[in-house]
């Protein structure tokens, strides 16, 4: 990992609100502004004006110069800039009479099929000379590619970063012990705490949410949705659970676990590989399928042994007969989620493999205007450049799925692949005929050795933590904001590239990615200072602030309040149930609805308000039934603490305790570290006080019942769930404080800092 990302930041005094780490000195910043990295130079001076504009037309994989040494990648392809740079660097090392071939070819100084493309006395020639000079003497900048712009960004301090990471990774708030350790021990202590977070089940639950957002195999959860996809002839026990009384608890559980275990298998493999600390490459190269006691029966794998035959979390590696496993690629769920047809011939699967595991959207390669009405070629996917630009990348991988039918069944294709298509393979390399029966295994081995596989893994984790995928290169240089977007993309891609290097160096340990991202400015950015309008435009995408997904919000509710949004234990989770607010609040079903809404609309805003009101109702009175040491929300007050006495005089001790508790709630619910007397504490206290006075007056005037709304009364112990003895029941607001605290809790829960990823 380059020093830059960690060393850019220095500790400085915190700012009211969240803790931050301040910015670098102006002198250092301006010195770095002058530095232009080799890749930035290449992009600005060579790639855009010369190679993309002049060379690419012939020097591409399907162009007239496709057999030359210079075959360039299109801008739509991930990492194209770096790869093209490396290609030119290689060619630039060849010389004739001391002059680089990179200068001789385009000036027709030596034989060049394209003739003279640039003027030896022009700016483009000078740009190429500059590039060659950099090949010989690389320029290393300490700052980021956008000229040190990130140094103007304020970062969360480590304790605040830990809170953000804890909520996102495992849905918990850091303990006071953890916060103290991190404050005292710095990054080493921070990494140690983060490591403990990544040991628990909650981390894997989060991880699988991230990867299901990509794979979407959870579509098959529920009913017989997954087991129905299996061929009854191959798996005659696929519905074994139908033999068990469906009305019985055992029958219901068997059906649920059998189907869902089959459905979850690709995600379970990811968890298994990460949990065991193995190379992430194994998600594609695994020579096994994962089964638990339920799915083993579905597949008829009776010889797999389990410690507990009823434990659905007990996964074992197993092999299906006559089934050349290649991890997720040959998972029945994956093959069904991304099916094929006789005429599609696995091209859809190829596209998805590249999208999911190679960080490449091949459809983007076809975004340049095409005119198929002019295509007259025989077999145009092979022979017409407009078609071949995509099909050269799509078809070899499609061929490597040659033995898998539309239903995901294996059948060795003895006759080989379709002759009118490119042969099964990967890039320029074809599957050896003797490996055709296991072509997908061959493919998996190639994919995981491609750097883009590592990039895709880093990108998936980045998306999970930062809340969006890494941005892609803008393609329209005439569009407003192009330059700013390009600058940010360069900044981000440099980080992704370095994180990828570190991931590969770790032996493809997925967990190694997490601290690198969490400690980076892309996760910790909080504020900025003295930005010009141009700088603001560049940094517009920076930060993790986005509306929490229903799943993330549910986790946060549990972390902060110790419970989710359910009126009773056996009632639907309002955020996660499909017939409640899941879809209205932007959630997905992995089937028809696969894209999350990340900006709130009027409907979602109202759901946020209802959530705040209802949670305040559900948690306020019950928390007061607990001994003060066990309380989650009110550790500094009793509900008898009123701000004024019966004569309207202030009660200073009560006011002090109320404000102390408000300060505590700002930290617990919002993560805000406020000093006593902070205006935000005063604002919240005024809300409390005005509400208390209103309720007191209304109740004395018989305009409001002393009884709390039924849903807000406390009849059960919030920890044990047992009925409370009569003296601990709170069903009336005799001191008018419960409703005032409900107002405070609702106010804070509806806050931007609570509803948004921070």
């Amino acid at each position: 990992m380059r020093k830059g990302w960690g060393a850019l930041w220095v500790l400085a005094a915190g700012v009211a609100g969240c803790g931050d780490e301040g910015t670098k000195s102006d002198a250092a910043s301006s010195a770095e502004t002058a530095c232009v990295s080799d890749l930035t130079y290449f992009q600005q001076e060579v790639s855009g004006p010369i190679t993309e504009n002049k060379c690419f037309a012939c020097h591409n994989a399907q162009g007239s110069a496709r057999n030359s040494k210079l075959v360039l990648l299109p801008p739509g392809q991930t990492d194209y800039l770096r790869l093209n740079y490396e290609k030119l660097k290689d060619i630039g090392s060849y010389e004739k009479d001391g002059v680089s071939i990179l200068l001789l070819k385009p000036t027709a100084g030596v034989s060049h099929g394209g003739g003279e493309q640039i003027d030896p006395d022009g700016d483009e020639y000078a740009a190429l000379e500059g590039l060659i000079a950099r090949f010989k003497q690389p320029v290393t900048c300490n700052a980021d590619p956008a000229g040190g712009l990130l140094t103007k960004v304020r970062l969360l301090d480590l304790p605040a970063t830990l809170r953000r990471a804890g909520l996102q990774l495992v849905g918990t708030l850091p303990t006071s012990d953890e916060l103290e350790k991190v404050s005292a021990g710095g990054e080493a202590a921070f990494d140690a705490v983060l490591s403990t977070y990544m040991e628990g089940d909650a981390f894997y639950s989060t991880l699988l949410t991230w990867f299901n957002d990509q794979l979407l195999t959870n579509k098959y959860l529920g009913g017989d949705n997954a087991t129905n996809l299996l061929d009854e002839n191959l798996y005659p026990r696929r519905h074994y659970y139908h033999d068990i009384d469906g009305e019985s608890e055992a029958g219901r559980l068997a059906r649920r676990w059998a189907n869902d275990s089959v459905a979850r298998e690709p995600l379970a493999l990811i968890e298994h590989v990460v949990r065991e600390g193995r190379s992430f490459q194994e998600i594609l190269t695994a020579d096994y399928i994962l089964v638990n006691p339920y799915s083993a029966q579905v597949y008829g794998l009776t010889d797999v042994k389990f410690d507990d035959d009823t434990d659905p979390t007990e996964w074992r590696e197993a092999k299906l007969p006559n089934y050349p496993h290649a991890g997720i690629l040959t998972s029945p769920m994956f093959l069904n989620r991304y099916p094929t047809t006789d005429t599609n011939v696995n091209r859809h699967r190829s596209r998805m493999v590249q999208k999911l595991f190679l960080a490449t959207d091949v459809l983007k390669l076809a975004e340049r205007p095409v005119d198929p009405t002019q295509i007259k070629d025989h077999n145009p996917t092979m022979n017409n450049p407009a078609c071949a630009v995509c099909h050269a990348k799509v078809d070899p991988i499609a061929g490597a799925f040659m033995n898998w039918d539309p239903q995901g069944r294996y059948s060795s294709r003895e006759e080989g692949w379709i002759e009118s298509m490119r042969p099964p393979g990967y890039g320029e390399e074809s599957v050896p005929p003797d490996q055709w029966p296991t072509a997908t295994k061959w493919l998996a081995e190639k994919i995981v050795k491609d750097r883009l596989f590592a990039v895709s893994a880093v990108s998936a984790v980045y998306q999970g933590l930062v809340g969006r995928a890494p941005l892609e290169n803008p393609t329209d240089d005439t569009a407003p904001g192009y330059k700013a977007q390009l600058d940010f993309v360069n900044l981000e891609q440099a980080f992704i590239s370095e994180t990828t290097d570190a991931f590969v160096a770790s032996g493809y340990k997925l967990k190694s990615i997490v601290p690198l991202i969490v400690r980076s400015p892309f996760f910790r950015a909080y504020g900025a200072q003295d930005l010009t309008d141009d700088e603001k435009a560049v940094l517009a995408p920076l930060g993790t602030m986005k509306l929490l997904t229903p799943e993330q919000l549910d986790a946060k509710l549990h972390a902060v309040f110790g419970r989710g949004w359910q009126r009773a234990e056996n009632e639907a989770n309002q955020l996660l149930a499909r017939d409640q607010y899941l879809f209205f609040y932007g959630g997905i079903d992995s089937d028809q609805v696969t894209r999350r809404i990340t900006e709130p609309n009027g409907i979602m805003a109202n759901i946020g308000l209802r959530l705040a009101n209802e949670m305040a109702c559900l948690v306020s009175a019950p928390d007061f039934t607990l001994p003060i040491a066990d309380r989650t929300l009110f550790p500094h007050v009793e509900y008898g603490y009123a701000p004024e006495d019966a004569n309207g005089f202030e009660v200073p001790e009560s006011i002090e305790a109320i404000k102390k508790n408000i300060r505590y709630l700002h930290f617990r619910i919002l993560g805000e570290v406020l000093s006593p007397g902070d205006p935000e504490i005063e604002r919240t206290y005024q809300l409390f006080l005005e509400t208390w006075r209103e309720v007191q007056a209304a109740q004395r005037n018989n305009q409001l019942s002393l009884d709390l709304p039924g849903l807000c009364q406390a009849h059960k112990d919030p920890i044990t769930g047992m009925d409370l003895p009569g003296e601990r029941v709170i069903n009336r607001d005799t001191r008018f404080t419960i409703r005032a605290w409900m107002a405070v809790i609702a106010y804070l829960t509806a806050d931007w800092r609570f509803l948004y990823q921070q």
Partner: protein
Amino acid sequence: MNRRDFMKLCGGAGLALMTPAALRNARAEAPTSAGPFWMFFHAGGGWDPTSLCDPKGSRREMDPEGLNHYLASAIEEAGNIRYAPVANNAAFFQKHYKRLMVVNGLDTQTNSHDAGTRHVWSGKLAEGYPSLAALIASTVAEERPMAFISNGGYDYTAGLVAPTRTGNIGVLNRIAFPNSVDGEPTGEQFHTDATFNRIVKYQSGRQPYLTGAANLPKAQNSVSQLFVARMGQNEVKRLSEFLPREFEQAELKRQAQVAIAGFRAGIAQTANMSTGGFDTHGDHDNQHFPRMQSLMEGVDFAWQEAERQGVADNLIIAVGSDFGRTPGYNGGNGKDHWSISSMLLMGKGIPGNKVVGVTDERHSPLELDPATLKPKAGGVRIQPKHIHFHLRRLAGLTGDPVADQNFPLMDTEDLPLLKA
């Protein structure tokens, strides 16, 4: 304070919101005019115009060169509009031809689903432009809580406006009345009205603190997003007044019921309607025609519902797809991707009983004289941008600083598409 006032306040307080909210600032002084309601029907997967409004029949039975299995002699007409004699097209065209305009030979310039969908509904092939539905909603109805309802299709907003997705209609009352325990307007409440209003007021009072403290552009933008979204919280109640008592089973029709109720309630302005299943690489006719029929029945239902709710006079409907399908069948009796498509338009300001654009017998577009739209070698092909040019004008976007400066339709000829 409404949304527009909030943006002016941000600008005045030196809290200039960054892209894309900064784009909105440019509009803060512009007058608001709601204009017509819009419904954009998207046939997901790439429809076959030759099975709809640009019919190409076979010369004879079993014609190996035939683009379709039906005969050319069986092609039917409704006024000036010719249509394919399949998928019960007659029911739609005979009923609506007087208000219907057909654009044939629409060149989407791509065979990619995503790119085609984007091109057709944003007017630009490359990424980065919002859907027309989002652009209109943000321009003329940005303060409405459900300004842009999206049921799929191309709903990229460029951050201009938040899309609304609908779910179980049964919970809408609880959403509309967030302070009511069970969603009943007069039922038990969590807080008194005074307390609830106080909470909302104190939240508003906290906005400057949040915007000032979290001064990263994205943070400021997201603070404003939430604040703006809350501005319409009371208006959501109106939706429940206009929702029908019973909902249709068909997905597209149900989408239409909610969208039109939103229009009628004055809380929605544009809606993406979406249905899939058109990517028929195999067994084309049997797979494609039922989808086509379902689509056109959905459009017909939407018009009926708009009439019932009294908004049809102020409604514009556009129907399109990713691209078209290849001229002729593949080995699996399916049709593959083809960049030439069509679009249907109807409603306020759209001349009816009209067809523009011409394709040849192999469904390739003929170039047109930009002045007369008659075929002329060396002329222009109709692209989505040409249609968007006029739709933007109908929406009142001409001169809008965001549309013109940030999402301009460059190099676009003013073709007389909507000339009656």
